[in-house]
């Protein structure tokens, strides 16, 4: 199982460690320094590990990969801990360590603080596994909520690191005790037979296809809902900055809806079909682009309305900036998906946390920074987006 997660020669362990080293050296060389309270480090380590471990355990694709494993005769406890340790190792080495490296690079920490952060990350993984087994028994749900709230309260209230470390160790012990008792099959999700729902009014519209895709994947829907909340709240924060025009920054942040921008990478069968059918550069990509643009624009509209209510002054230029950002983000995302889809991922988490997902948001943030500092650049950016659209349409039409 660990070979499936880390590669046949465990090459992902080496890659993960090299990535951490590069990140640490790059941030150190840039002399970026910040004051961060230890509880933020502990909270980040716990939350990142818990979230990523939960995603890995709940992934339906991962469950498919495990069906062969569950067919074999196994010792229950050994199997449970093999699964948890494999996923925990994967989460720690390939994901959490990167987060911790960033924290370690931007701020000076004592050895004890670093050790407790690692302990928090381990606890996050084991806690997620224990919670995963408890959530499946509905009556244990209140305990999960209590446990989670307890950890959250302790992170913020306990200032003595050694006492906090003991609390984390106790949580780890509690997770281990829970896992000792569970049936390994709790980690296998066989799916359930649902009554077949008929859709008689569809006409083969890609926009409808994508809406179904968005509404079926709860993670993606939550991400979009989260962005809507941020869109309403963001003007409160950004509005306080007076020297710079920070409004474009908000548009760029709101284009961070990365899950909907990896449709082809997520679904290799769809990617294959789209490449095999004729004329998909036009038929599929343009509609995909419109879909991302619509979602981006819907969120940006909330931001514009919220900004206007709080600060006023959201006029034609601001609407043009919102349109430009939403369109630019959509064009770049679709172009990247078409020309450089993420392939050869082992489990879904690889995709959700793949650096390529963040290329477009990074470009958008840089562009927003530029237009914020030099407002006359908005016109230039608009021309660039229109030129991109025109060139792409020309390529599609010629094909």
């Amino acid at each position, binding site marked *: 199982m660990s070979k499936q997660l880390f590669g046949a020669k465990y090459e992902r362990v080496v890659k993960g460690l090299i990535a951490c080293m590069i990140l640490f050296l790059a941030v150190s060389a840039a002399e970026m320094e910040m004051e961060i309270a230890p509880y933020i480090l502990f909270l980040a380590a716990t939350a990142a590990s818990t979230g990523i471990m939960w995603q890995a355990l709940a992934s339906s694709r991962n469950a498919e990969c495990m069906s062969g494993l569950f067919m074999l005769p196994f010792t229950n406890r050994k199997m449970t801990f093999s699964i948890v340790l494999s996923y925990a190792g994967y989460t720690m080495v390939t994901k959490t360590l990167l987060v911790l490296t960033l924290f370690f690079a931007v701020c000076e920490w004592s050895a004890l603080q670093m050790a407790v952060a690692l302990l928090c990350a381990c606890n996050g993984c084991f806690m997620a596994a224990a919670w995963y087994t408890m959530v499946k028994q509905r009556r244990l749900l209140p305990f999960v909520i209590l446990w989670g709230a307890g950890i959250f309260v302790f992170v913020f209230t306990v200032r003595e690191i050694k006492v906090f470390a003991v609390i984390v160790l106790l949580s780890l012990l509690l997770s281990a005790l829970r896992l000792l008792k569970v049936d390994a099959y709790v980690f296998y999700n066989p799916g359930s037979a*649902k009554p*077949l*729902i*008929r*859709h*008689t009014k*569809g*006409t*083969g*519209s*890609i926009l*409808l*296809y994508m809406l*179904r*895709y968005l509404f*079926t994947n709860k993670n993606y829907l939550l991400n979009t809902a989260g962005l809507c909340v941020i869109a309403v709240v963001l003007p409160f924060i950004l509005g306080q900055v007076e020297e710079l025009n920070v409004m474009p920054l908000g548009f760029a942040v709101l284009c961070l809806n990365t899950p909907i921008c990896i449709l082809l990478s997520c*679904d290799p*069968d*769809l990617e*294959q*079909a*789209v*490449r*095999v*059918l*004729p*004329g*998909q550069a036009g*038929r599929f990509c343009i509609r995909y682009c419109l879909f991302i643009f619509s979602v981006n624009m819907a969120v940006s509209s909330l931001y514009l309305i919220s900004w206007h209510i709080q600060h006023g002054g959201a006029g034609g230029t601001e609407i043009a900036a919102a349109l430009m950002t939403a369109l630019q983000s959509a064009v770049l995302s679709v172009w990247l998906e078409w020309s450089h889809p993420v392939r050869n991922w082992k489990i879904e988490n690889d995709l959700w946390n793949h650096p390529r997902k963040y290329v477009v948001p990074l470009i958008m943030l840089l562009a927003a920074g530029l237009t914020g500092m030099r407002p006359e650049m908005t016109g230039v950016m608009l021309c660039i987006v229109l030129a991109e659209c025109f060139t792409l349409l020309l390529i599609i039409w010629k*094909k």
Partner: protein
Amino acid sequence: MDNSHLLTLKNLTVWYTKNKSVLKELSMKLGTNEIVGLIGLNGAGKTTLIKTLSGLLDSFRVEDTLWQEKPFMFRDRDFKKNRYVVFAEEHSFSFFTFREYASYVAASYGKELSDVDELVQGFQFEEYTDVLLKELSTGNQKKAYLITAFALKPQLLVLDEPVNGLDFQSTEYLYSRINDYRQYGTVLFSSHILESICLTSDRVLVLEEGRIRKRFTGQEIETDKIREVLKE
């Protein structure tokens, strides 16, 4: 069967990793309105050949590719519009129903689908035409793509192990549709099941280690003869 060639490939070499070719200098010709069966052991290169024809692979070298005696490349739009592929493991457009998928494919090819109701009935698929593909079993998903393929009637129909996952009645119906397809175009299909090849094909190509090792035509197409070649 017409004497002119629909598709000609000369010395096609395909690889996934350099210095390890999956197809080696493979040459083949497909006539118009014929059924060609492709058989070979696992790893012989059947799916790789189909993926190359589909334009999915970049890593290949070919001396000559002709479509109706004119040069073409696998990703040319005109070629794509004249062929349709059903893969062995296909789960594409899973958030469409069969009817939506078929309508999307028809629009992509700029064609009207014909005989859909007859095909739906033949494959015993009536219950599932308005259900999302992702909610169907593997066999029913396969039927959705096969019905679309036969309703589209492209000049070249490429089927990768079409029998896999189908029940007995649908398999029998598939054989009859393949046999009837001569009036519309050419079928190139791969299979591990000798019976499916022998019951339908005008020609059989035996693929071994990336090359066409033996060809059978007409009366030569017998399960025992092909089995002997595969055993050697």
